C-alpha cells in the first residue's frame, strides 16, 4: 500500500476522492506497523459514568457483564476544527515532473480532509486563495463535507499572485473556535513578512502549521546552459547561467527555507517542507503528531 503514497502513482488517478482514500488507507496500513504513532480510534481507557456524559459512549457490553456503566475513552476523542488554507497562485502551477505543486497540495489537503473527517471526526474546512480569497468552505462534520471539500480542491486552479493578507484577515472573520490551521503554499516572499502575516491566526489558540510545498527543481535547478526564466506570477523574465543556478541560487533558496522554518518556529508555528517527488505520508504524520500533541 505504501506505493500509493507516491505522488507519481497518485497522478495517474483522476479522482481526488479516490486519491484521498488510497493515501489514507495506505497510510493507516503503514501506521499499524509503527510503534510511534497511535490512532484516534484506538481504545485508551475506561472511565466511570458520571451524570451528563454522552450515553453513546457507554460501553454496553461492560454494563451487561458488570451492571456498571463505563465510558469507553479513545485517543483524540475530542473533536477539532481543522482548516486548510491553500495557496492557488500561479507559482503553484510549476512542475518539473508529473505532479505540479498545486496537485501535490491537493493530494495532501484531500488526504488530510479524508483522514480528519472519516477517521478523526474533525470539522474540516478549506480556504483557497491567491491574491484574494477565491473559495471558502466552512469547517463542518456534516454529511457530504468531504465531497464539498474535495470539489473545492478540484476547482482550485492556479491564477494570479500570492497575497497572504486577505485570506488571513478573511479567515479571522470566521474563526471563532480554536482549531488546527494548515497553510499550504510555496511561500515565495520574505519569511519574516509571511510569518508576520500568518501569526495572527494563533491569537485564538489555533495551532498553525506551514506546509511548504516545493518542486525538487526549485531547490536544485537543472540548467545545463544559460536560460531565460519567466516568473509564473509576475511574468518577468531573467537570463540565468548554470553557474549562478548551481551556486548562488541554491544557497539562497536554502537560506530562504531555513529562514522560514526559523521564523515559523519562533512564532510558535510548525513548519514542514514538502517536496513534490516524495511520498505524502510526511504531511499526514505531521498532522497526526500535532493532533496527538493537542490531546
Amino acid at each position, binding site marked *: 500500500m505504501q506505493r500509493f503514497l507516491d505522488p507519481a502513482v497518485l497522478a495517474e488517478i483522476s479522482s481526488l476522492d479516490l486519491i484521498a482514500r488510497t493515501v489514507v488507507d495506505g497510510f493507516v496500513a503503514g501506521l499499524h506497523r509503527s510503534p510511534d504513532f497511535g490512532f484516534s480510534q484506538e481504545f485508551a481507557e475506561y472511565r466511570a459514568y458520571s451524570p451528563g456524559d454522552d450515553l453513546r459512549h457507554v460501553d454496553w457490553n461492560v454494563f451487561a457483564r458488570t451492571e456498571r456503566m463505563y465510558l469507553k475513552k479513545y485517543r483524540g476523542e475530542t473533536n477539532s476544527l481543522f482548516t486548510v488554507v491553500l495557496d492557488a497562485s500561479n507559482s503553484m502551477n*510549476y512542475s518539473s515532473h508529473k505532479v505540479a505543486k498545486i496537485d501535490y497540495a491537493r493530494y495532501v489537503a484531500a488526504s488530510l480532509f479524508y483522514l480528519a473527517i472519516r477517521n478523526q471526526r474533525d470539522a474540516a474546512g478549506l480556504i483557497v486563495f491567491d491574491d484574494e480569497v477565491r473559495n471558502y468552505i466552512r469547517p463542518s462534520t456534516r454529511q457530504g463535507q468531504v465531497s464539498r471539500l474535495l470539489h473545492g480542491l478540484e476547482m482550485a486552479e492556479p491564477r494570479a499572485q500570492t497575497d497572504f493578507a486577505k485570506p488571513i484577515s478573511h479567515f479571522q472573520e470566521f474563526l471563532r473556535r480554536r482549531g488546527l490551521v494548515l497553510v499550504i503554499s510555496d511561500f515565495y516572499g520574505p519569511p519574516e513578512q509571511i510569518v508576520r502575516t500568518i501569526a495572527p491566526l494563533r491569537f485564538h489558540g489555533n495551532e498553525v502549521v506551514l506546509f511548504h510545498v516545493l518542486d525538487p527543481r*526549485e531547490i536544485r535547478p537543472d540548467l*545545463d546552459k*544559460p536560460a531565460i526564466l519567466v*516568473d509564473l506570477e509576475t511574468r518577468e523574465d531573467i*537570463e540565468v547561467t548554470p553557474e*549562478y543556478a548551481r551556486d548562488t541560487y541554491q544557497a539562497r*533558496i536554502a537560506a530562504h527555507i531555513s529562514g522560514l522554518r526559523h521564523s515559523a518556529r519562533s512564532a510558535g508555528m510548525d513548519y514542514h517542507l514538502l517536496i513534490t517527488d516524495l511520498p505524502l505520508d510526511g504531511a499526514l504524520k505531521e498532522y497526526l503528531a500535532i493532533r496527538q500533541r493537542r490531546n
Partner: protein
Amino acid sequence: MGFLVPGFLAGAALVGLPLYLHLLRRHTTTPRPFSSIMFFERRTQSSIRHRRFRYLLLLSLRLAVLLLIVLAFANPYFKRAAVAAAGDKQLLLIVDDSFSMRAGTRLTDAKREALSVLASRNESTRAQVAALGSRLQVLTEPVQDSAALRAAVDSIGPGDSRSSFAELARGVRSLAEGAHAPIELHFFSDMQKSSMPASFSELLLPPSVALVLHPVVERAQPNWAVESVRAPGRVWNASEARVQATIAGYQTPAATRAVSLFINGKEVASQNAEVPAGGRANVEFQSLDVPYGFSRCEVRIDGADTLPADDAYLFSVERSDPQPVLLVHEAGDTRSSVYFGSALGSTAESSFSFQSLTVDRAAGVSLARYAFIVLADVGSLTSQFENDLVRYVRGGGGVLIAAGTSTGHRSRIPVFEENVLAIHDYSRDGARFLAAGETDTSHPSLANSEHWAGAKFYYAVAVDPSASRVVAKLTDQTPLLLDKKIGEGHALLLASGLDGITNDLPVQPVFVPFVKQTALYLSGTTDRGGARTVDSDLELRTSKEQAVSVEIVDPAGRRPLSLEEAATAESYQLTSSGYYEVRLANGRRDLVAVNPDRRESDLEIVPGDDLALWRGNTGAEPKQSTAAVAQSEPAKPRSLWWYAMLLALLAGIAESVVASRYLAVQREEP
C-alpha cells in the same frame, strides 16, 4: 604580400558556422517558466556577460582556426627580396691563390685589398673568408671577429693549383643556400682568362649574391714558360734517351731563351731556343746521362718575367739495367717468340731483355725477376706454374696472354680466369677474316697504336668481358683485347695468337708500338717517373684487399698520409709542385715530379665586358650596395603557409582547452 591560391579564400565563408552557433543560435533560447525569480537578481547579468566573454573567447579561437586554415590553403607569400634588402648582409671575401697569383705581387695586392675591405666594413656585419684554387676552400665561418678574419686572410699563401671560376660559382651557390642574409661577394683575383669556364652559364650566381670584383692586374703580362717536357721515365742506355722540351711565350715578343737541362741540380746541357712572338719553340737534348736509380731532372729557361715559377719543368727518370721479359710458348710455336721479341727489341727506348721458354722449361722458373710474362698461345700449363703465375700477377706483375688455337682448346683461360665461351674461326666463313672495330685509345697499350683497322683476324676466342675492361673489339663485337685487374697486377688478354697464323697483326705496323706500350704498361713503367700536373691523382693501390701500407713524402719532406690513410687510401691528390717520393702498395718505389698546370702560365686576363657581364651590371659602378642589387633582382616569393598552419594548430589547441573547460563545467552540474 599576396596569395598563391586566392581561390581558397572563399572558404572564409565557413566563419559563418561558429557565428551562427555562438550568436544566432544562442538567442533562440526558449524561455522557461519558473515559480518565482525572486532569488535571481539582476546582477546575474554580469555573470551572463562573463559567460558571453568566454563565449566570445571560444568564438574568437574558432574563427581564428578557420581563418588560419583558409589562409594556409590560400598560401600567402611575401617578396623575399624586399625583406632581405632591409635586413643585414654578409660579406664573403674570396682570394684567388692559384699558381698565376705568384706572378709579381698579385697575391700580396689581393690580400691587402681584402684586408682593406674588412677594415671598412661595419663591425656588426658578419664576414667569411675563403681561398680559390682548384676548389673553393672556406677558411672561416661567417663571423664578426675582425682578428679572426684578418688572420684568415693573412694565412692565404701562394698555391700551385689552377683556379676555376666555375668552381667558385659552384661553391658560392652552395654557401648561399645556407646563408640567411644576402651575400656581398668580394673576389680578389688576377682574373685570368684561362680560369673562365667554357660555358658562361657555369658562372651564374644566386640572386641573393652581389658580386664585387677586385682585379689586381689591369692588363695581360708577358710570360715565358717551359710548357712541357717529353722524357722516358726509365732508361738503361743513356745515349739513346732523348729529352724534348717545349718553350712557350704568352703575350711575349720574339726572343731567344736559354734552355738548360738539370739533373739532380746540376746543369748538364744547355741550348738556345728561338721563341717567336707569342709562340712556341722545341728543344731537344740528345742524351740523358743519369745515374742509376731515380734522378730529379728539370728543364729550365732564363725567363726574366714576372712568374719565374713556371720557368722550370720537373721530371724524374729512373735508370736501371734492362729488365728481362719471359715469353712462354708451346714447343711447336716458334713464330710467336720471333715476332714478339723482334718488336720488343726494335724500340729505341726499350729497357727490356727478351727471353723465351717452352712450357716445359718454364715450369720452376722464378718469375719475380721478370718485368712481365707473355703466354703465347699455350695449351697446357702445369698447375704449379699457373699458381706461380697467379701469385706473380696478384703481387703486382703483368702478363700478356695470347689466346690462339692451342688456348682455344681449353675450357678456361689460364690466369685470366675466364671460361672460353666460343671459338670464332673466321677463315672458314665467307668473310675469311674480321678487322678490329672499336679501340679504346685511352688504354696505355693502345696509346700510340690507334690504327688497328688494317690487321686481319682469322681466329678469335670469345670470353665473358663483364669483369674486364674491353680495350679493343672485332667488328662483330667480339672482345679482342681485354684488361683485367688481378690483385695489384694486370692480365692482358689478346683473343688471338701472336704467331702470324691466326691473324696478321705481327706483320702490321701497329704491332711494334703495341708491343712497346704493352711492355711499358705491364712492367709498370708508364706509371713511373716522368711528370704530372698539380691536382692530379696518384694511384696508390689497385686492390682494396691488401692492407699493405703505402708511403708518400711530399716536396716539403712531410708525410701527408696518416697511418690509417696509408693502409687504406687508393689514391692521393698531388696538390703542390715538386718531387714526391712514393712507395706503392705493390712494393715499387717511385719518384713523381709534379708541375703546375701550364694553363696558369698564360697571364691573359678576362676582358672587361665579360667581367661586367658576370657582375650582372654592364654599365654601373663595380661596387654597389646590396640593397640596390636586391631591388634590381626579381623578387622571390616566400610562402607563409607553414606559419599559418602552425598558428592554426596553436589556436586549435587553445580552443580545445577553453571548450573542454566549458564542457567540464556542464558535466559537473547535476
